[in-house]
């Protein structure tokens, strides 16, 4: 299925969009990540898998700059992102969702998605207080953009509802909308299938693929749900105990003896 498409994007031919280079993270005496390297190419859906405690979330948090690697580097378009503070990651085109949904609970769906555009817009408190003409124009453009995304993810009906009152599945979609609002180049999804039922997971899989194809994004998918990863990822990286265990197409990784032993074998998936 997706492997056919992957063949058109041969790994290693072009410069990678995102390069993880020998990243290590140490907490106290515990090595959470140990020299992990992999590349992400434009348009790929990369699945990052591994059993609990394998270091998936640690790596994810390095990408969103919540953790500082003790060694190694992460390059976006050839430039290190490690000197950037967390709030300056969005502006270079890295958007993310959170494992347990981290929405702005008291804001409406509309406002949550509007905040998603923060990194792509400008303002200052004086102009905002006076609602100067350029602020009004900016807000008008912003609204058009935000409503387009709400329409895209079928959220128009709940646009004015406070997010804390929405069902979990809808909240997850709002989070996705918020991440899309900044038009990121790379979308980091932290366990998007968590808490969804069987059917919802496959709807989500189709949605992720649709977003990648239509909105020209590159997706990093950190996921427990093997079925989802194997059905939509072009490339899979398997971690265990902070080390890279295997890397390749879903089929390759799935048949890798080390992976079977560490993960698949023990988890009768």
């Amino acid at each position, binding site marked *: 299925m997706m492997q056919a498409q992957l063949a058109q994007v041969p790994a290693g031919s072009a410069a990678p969009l995102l390069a993880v280079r020998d990243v290590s993270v140490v907490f106290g005496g515990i090595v959470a990540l140990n020299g992990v390297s992999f590349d992400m190419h434009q348009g790929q859906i990369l699945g990052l898998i591994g059993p609990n405690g394998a270091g998936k979330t640690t790596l994810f948090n390095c990408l969103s700059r919540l953790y500082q690697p003790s060694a190694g580097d992460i390059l976006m378009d050839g430039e290190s992102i490690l000197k950037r503070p967390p709030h300056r990651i969005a502006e270079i085109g890295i958007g993310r969702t959170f494992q347990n949904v981290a929405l702005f609970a*008291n804001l409406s769906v509309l406002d949550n998605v509007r905040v998603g555009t923060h990194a792509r817009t400008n303002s200052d408190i004086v102009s905002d207080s006076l609602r100067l003409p350029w602020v009004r124009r900016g807000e008008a453009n912003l609204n058009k953009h935000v409503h387009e995304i709400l329409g895209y993810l079928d959220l128009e009906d709940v646009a004015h509802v406070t997010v804390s009152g929405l069902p979990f599945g809808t909240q997850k979609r709002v989070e996705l909308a918020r991440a899309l609002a900044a038009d990121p180049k790379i979308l980091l999804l932290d366990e998007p299938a968590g808490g969804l039922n069987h059917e919802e997971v496959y709807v989500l899989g189709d949605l992720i693929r649709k977003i990648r194809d239509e909105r020209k994004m590159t997706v990093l998918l950190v996921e427990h749900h093997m079925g989802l990863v194997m059905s939509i990822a072009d490339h899979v990286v398997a971690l265990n105990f902070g080390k890279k265990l295997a890397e390749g197409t879903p089929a390759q990784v799935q048949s890798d003896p080390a992976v079977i032993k560490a993960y698949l074998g023990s988890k009768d998936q």
Partner: protein
Amino acid sequence: MSTVQEVVTEAPAIEAVPKKAMTLGYGTSLAVLALLILVPLFVKNFIIFQLTMLLIYALAVMALNILTGGSGQFSLGQSAFYAVGAYTSAILMEHGNINYALTLPVSGIVCFGFGYLFGKPALRLSGVYLALATFALATAMPQLLKLGVFEPWTGGVQGLVVTKPDAPSFVSSIWSVFSGRAMSQDMWLYYFTLAVSIGIYVASVNLLRSRSGRAFMAIRDNEIAASAMGVDVALYKTLAFGVSAGITGVAGALGAIAVQFVAPDSYTITLAISLFLGMVVGGVGWLPGSIVGSAFIIFVPNIAEGISKGLSGAVFGILLFVVIFLVPHGARQVAVIAQQLIGKLRKS
């Protein structure tokens, strides 16, 4: 409507409002405005003075509301910003002979700077710890104002007497054409304060509805997610402190002009706690509630005294308790209930 209901019945620690519910509709706004414009025409000067104080405290309560309801930061130190604003204005008027109206923006800017700088170290603190740090600021301020070094300007313990401004001659002459009397200083100051308050209220509403306001509220709800969206959490937290302090400073300056006097002991922690009380009674995060909160802190102590002179404090406490018990979300909850009742009446 339904969104307001949800928030009210939900009761999170810092109850927050979706932006739509943060303000009044046009109709209600106009009605309140008409009331604020008309009432002083029919009452005595002393009441006009009290109404002026109502507006001034409403500004200060609203400033705290922007900080707490908007950006989720607590402050028990608003009296310090109020004091700095009052003294800045008083010193400029009495030592610098500067027009009272011109001292207001200066007080606002000075307090913005003060609040912004205070917000920097306060960034490391949150919740109750931040409340404690601001509490320290409030306790320190009266003593700082008494310091001998500043005495040539501040007047030390004695404080400074401020001249109450007259109405400008053109306003006064227009007024006398209609009423046949000269416009009293109290009345002029009331309308002056009203104009300033409306300006600041509109600007605050604009601010909270803008990209900056959304950044404040995003931080209030989830700092990590806000940061991932590109919101510079440290910057916006200090900006919220600055804005809040700036508005409080303008309120302090207006207060100094209205009371005609500044002294260190007018700006103790009691004032800060009153403002905090006003915010809670008005409804945290609901800007129009500020005026209700302000009315509560100005008039309810008097009512309590009317009920029992010796036990006025206890009576005030009981009244406060009743309010918090019946409508924990303050004036906003009352507004929501009223809205529902009107809705029902219309249907039937």
